[in-house]
């Protein structure tokens, strides 16, 4: 974060404020927190953590149970006869790997297109006052309020007429465009914090507007671009409804959400395999998420706390 943010490029207010916040909090804590208070805080946080991860540990637990004992009233996390049978069965007997591969293709395509669309538009919204700008921003906000089910019939018809049912293309385009409004808001907020002086200097040196954008704004916005990439990525990775209507009938290109859902139906629940699949699908996303959470926080809050 430090080497990438605008705060680091020009030692301006946020960087100093951050340093002081750290020191201030430190002193407050040393003077204020008695050992008992500290103990209470740790206990509370531990309790919350248990409540947070227990449902997830249960999924892990179910995935490790052998097939004949899936439904159990035991609360133990690691069952006494743990086995990887469910994982083997999932990988061997279902198209799980195919589903993950399909999801990955769609997701990567979406994230690339989404970032490209949003980063340029956000730049226009951040740097120019053009007619229709405010109306545009309000429209982008309004799109966030559209219930997903509202667009499903029209988008299905649109896909049907353009022969996009059962193809990646329909989904990639739908996902990347529907993620654009939120991405633009995030990026615009971040661009706003980049001092204009940096661009002006480059413009005086004779660089064009787009060269300035490419060489100055984009490199400085890496944290927020990462967030937008991640946002597009997770949206597409986890999406279920549109995948169902666009890919529903073509099994070869099902995403993992569609695939796992079939393992968890009302009358024929493959709990063990479902849980194993859930664990396998979740781990990479969680790693990506925890790794980027630093950027995530700075990118989401910087846009709003400024000046």
């Amino acid at each position: 974060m430090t080497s990438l943010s605008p705060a680091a490029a020009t030692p301006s207010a946020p960087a100093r404020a951050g340093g002081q916040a750290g020191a201030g909090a430190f002193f407050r804590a040393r003077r204020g927190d008695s050992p008992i208070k500290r103990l209470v805080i740790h206990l509370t946080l531990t309790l919350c953590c248990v409540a947070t991860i227990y449902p997830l540990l249960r999924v892990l637990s179910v995935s490790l149970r052998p097939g004949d004992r899936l439904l159990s009233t035991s609360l133990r996390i690691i069952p006494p006869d743990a086995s990887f049978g469910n994982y083997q069965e999932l990988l061997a007997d279902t198209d799980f790997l195919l589903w993950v591969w399909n999801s990955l293709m769609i997701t990567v395509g979406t994230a690339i297109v989404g970032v490209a669309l949003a980063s340029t538009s956000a730049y226009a919204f951040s740097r120019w006052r053009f007619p229709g700008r405010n109306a545009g921003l309000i429209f982008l906000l309004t799109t966030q309020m559209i219930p997903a089910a509202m667009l499903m019939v029209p988008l299905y018809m649109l896909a049907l007429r353009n022969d996009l049912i059962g193809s990646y293309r329909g989904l990639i385009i739908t996902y990347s465009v529907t993620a654009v409004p939120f991405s633009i808001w995030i990026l615009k907020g971040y661009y706003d914090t980049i001092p204009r002086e940096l661009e002006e200097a480059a413009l005086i040196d004779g660089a064009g507007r787009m060269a300035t954008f490419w060489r100055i704004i984009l490199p400085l916005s890496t944290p927020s671009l990462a967030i937008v990439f991640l946002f597009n990525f997770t949206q597409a990775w986890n999406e279920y409804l549109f995948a169902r209507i666009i890919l529903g009938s073509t099994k070869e290109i099902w995403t993992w959400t569609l695939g796992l859902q079939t393992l968890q139906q009302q009358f024929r629940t493959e709990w063990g395999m479902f849980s194993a699949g859930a664990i396998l699908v979740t781990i990479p996303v969680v790693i990506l998420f925890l790794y980027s959470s630093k950027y995530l926080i700075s990118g989401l809050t910087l846009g709003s706390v400024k000046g």
Partner: protein
Amino acid sequence: MDRLLAQLFPSLTETVGTILFIIVVTALIELIVYLVLGRIFKSRHLLVWMLIAPATVGLAILIVYPLLWEMRLSLTNMSLRRFGDKAQYFWVVCAAGEAPQGLAWLTECLFKNFVDVFRLPVLKQVTFLPVFLRTVAWTGFNVVLHVAGGMGLALLLNRPMRGRGIYRALLILPWAIPQVIAVLAWRGEFHYEYGYFNIILTQLGLAPVEWLSNPLANFGAMVATNVWLGVPFMMVILLGAMQSISGEYYEAAEIDGAGGYQQWRHITLPLIQPVLTPAIVLGTIWTFNNFNVPFFINQNELETSDILVTALFRAAFEYNRYGFAAAFAFVIFVLLLAYVLIYIALTGTLKESTR
């Protein structure tokens, strides 16, 4: 495995093909914008329009056009029987002979679907008002608990202590987990016999609860699941905002003898306001429109657990009343829009960000 290998190459070509397709279309759009605005109109803002053109075209095709289409659909009697065949569905205009006159023509013919939303059951039995009130309760409970929980955890974490990174990483997890998986996992835990809520209740000597079939318990289960899912987002956002507050304020307050609560009330709260307000607006919209939690937790399809968006989905895709569902969708959309506009007008949020 064979199917995966067979699909590997077609997938790659299709994904790369899609990206190339988008690049070509973008280039075409840029060319048209350049020729029309730059050469013919000699617009001052040519670069701006070229920057926003691709996203604008995308949004026009995938958001604006479908919305207009949906608007037209809401005035028709389209349903599954008539699906896809244009000649079979028509504008909800009464036959010429029996058409009522005046106001009745508007309510009985042109806007029949819109009036029906309020007049007839939106699903089998349940009418609009109970579903709406339930949605308000659902949104209210969730947002209050999200903010309270997120604020509490952020305050606890906003201090130097051992294990802070670990706590934060663990507490963030529900946000990182794919939502469908988290919700389906929670649904399993509400099982009457094998879910751990009832196991714990039984072990404590209490009667087990029918989470999936008792309307009130099912609603409680929905809220519990969504609170678990939503608190981490608030916590992360508020913690980020709190960490950007300068420590000097607190030092000055302490010298003046302000206690912990007073510091929170008069320093923390006002200073995180610019982050808190948009987070609440976004949280409200997301909760109001949350589909996964109410849809999947409500495994037995109780009409008494449906909120507006799930009722909308069922009206469209289970009862296949497309024309009616389109009108229903617009009613929901307008309600949410009205709420947000009022909220923004009261708090002045947008002024700040469109500055």
